[in-house]
């Protein structure tokens, strides 16, 4: 189990996370929703150990970060590094001696080509494949459905379900509510750095409705289009 207690994070004078309390159990999929800038990615980075923070994150692992797979919104690939080399690096970093990735290549990625030349969706698939090969316990997927086609979307959904069945913990953020409602057990709504609502499957429809009711109001009238 992972318990987040009073997690706070500021950048200079700006407080991004204002005291988050959450807990995550193995075998559950958690959705994190919120507008841009609500603090979703900062929360993910803090859990992954990529950001320093105030508060506490407790887990049964001595060092949680060594058991976390983090799929970034826009995975970064080094220039002139092949897909195979990227996977090799991820495995080597976790002391996993793996060389043959063809069997795990669910997405039929051209692993012998430069990853920088992959499409947005292919890059995301490669990064996701890497996190799975690392045999992690916690999977943090930041906008995994962005930029992938409908077919890959379905595969990712199935992968998430498989991770859940394997008793892994999965955290997902997405702007596409349907993708979250298909996979998540619990969804947390974050607004301005705070968890304002947590709903289980029974409350998904209401949360979806609530999020759709957001109205830009008269602000749009001020936009001049020339």
């Amino acid at each position: 189990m992972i318990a987040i207690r009073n997690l706070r994070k500021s950048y200079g004078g700006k407080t991004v996370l204002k005291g988050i309390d959450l807990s995550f159990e193995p075998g559950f999929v958690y959705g994190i929703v919120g507008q841009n800038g609500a603090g979703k990615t900062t929360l993910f980075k803090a859990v992954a150990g990529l950001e320093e923070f105030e508060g506490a994150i407790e887990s049964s692992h001595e060092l949680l970060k060594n058991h976390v797979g983090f799929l970034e919104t826009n995975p970064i690939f080094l220039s002139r590094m092949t897909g195979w080399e990227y996977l090799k690096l991820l495995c080597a970093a976790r002391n996993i001696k793996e060389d043959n990735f063809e069997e795990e290549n669910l997405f039929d990625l051209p692993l012998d080509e430069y990853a920088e030349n992959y499409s947005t969706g292919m890059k995301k698939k490669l990064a996701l494949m890497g996190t799975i090969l690392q045999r992690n316990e916690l999977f943090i997927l930041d906008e995994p459905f962005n930029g992938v086609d409908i077919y890959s979307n379905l595969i990712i959904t199935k992968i998430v379900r498989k991770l859940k069945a394997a008793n892994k913990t999965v955290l997902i953020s997405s702007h596409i509510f349907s993708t979250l409602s298909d996979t998540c057990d619990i969804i947390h709504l974050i607004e301005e750095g705070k968890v304002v609502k947590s709903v289980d499957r029974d409350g998904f429809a209401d949360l979806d409705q609530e999020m759709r009711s957001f109205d830009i109001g008269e602000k749009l009238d001020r936009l001049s289009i020339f």
Partner: protein
Amino acid sequence: MKYYFSLQFKRFLRWLADSGVPAFIALPFLIIAFLAASKWLFIQTAFSSWIYAIVAMFVLLPLSDQLRNAQLKMLFSNGQLWQLRIIENIILVAPFVAYLCFEQQFLPAAGLVPVAALLTRLPTNVRYAKVFPSPFRKFPFEFSVGFRKTAWVLGTAYLLMIPAILVVNYNLGVFALIMIFLTGMSYYLKPESQTYVWIYACSVQNFLLRKMATALICISILSLPMLLIMLMAFPDFRLITLAVQLLGYIFMISVVLAKYSAYPNEMSIPQGILYGVSLTFPLLFLLVIPLFYYKATRKLKPLLE
């Protein structure tokens, strides 16, 4: 276009500020360092004016970066873009031209301006679709990636060995060996994204040891054939050759530590100066290596432990 150049100047001043040196100190220092380095080169060899012109062209190459030019293309019309690119290339090359004129090397100075303008026409839409084979495939990522980018430099270094042996020019051979090490060191100049460090499940000490070991193994693969050739071709200079190789290993270790001592930022100007001075007086590495190691452990700890 005026705004573009003022913005570039502001970015340059911000870079100086991030490097930890106030602009009023850094700017005069950079000018003095440039003049001193230029003078030093002109003392060394009779071909210095041509080497100098080539160095100037290398300085311009980053401006032809594919991504950078694609972004500029989106912002400016075609005519504006070429005007802008020519102006920025000429601004960068101007100090070199001025110094060449000072040294009364008018021919290379005159040649440099049109070449700078022509370099703006370098094809920037190159996508390296064909994968260049790398012997370091199993050692991602610094050498596998770096080798592909600099294979031509490494090839040139090995080619230099032919005239070095044919005309029995030991200095040229040593220069080629140093070229191999400098190329290997260049793979560690740019810091990688933090996730590429974060993924490691090991202590900071272990991480640094792994990085240093990989650097030493890979640079050995690149340099040992040349070392053997040198030892056989110039038996009278065996000790000096072995000392150069050993010094190369020390430089490799130090560049790995220097990189992570500033991580996730690039090396600051004071660190760069300290490193540069140590390259000139290698004994200083006895002090600098422990210092960089200490700083690197502090910088990496939040990400790894």
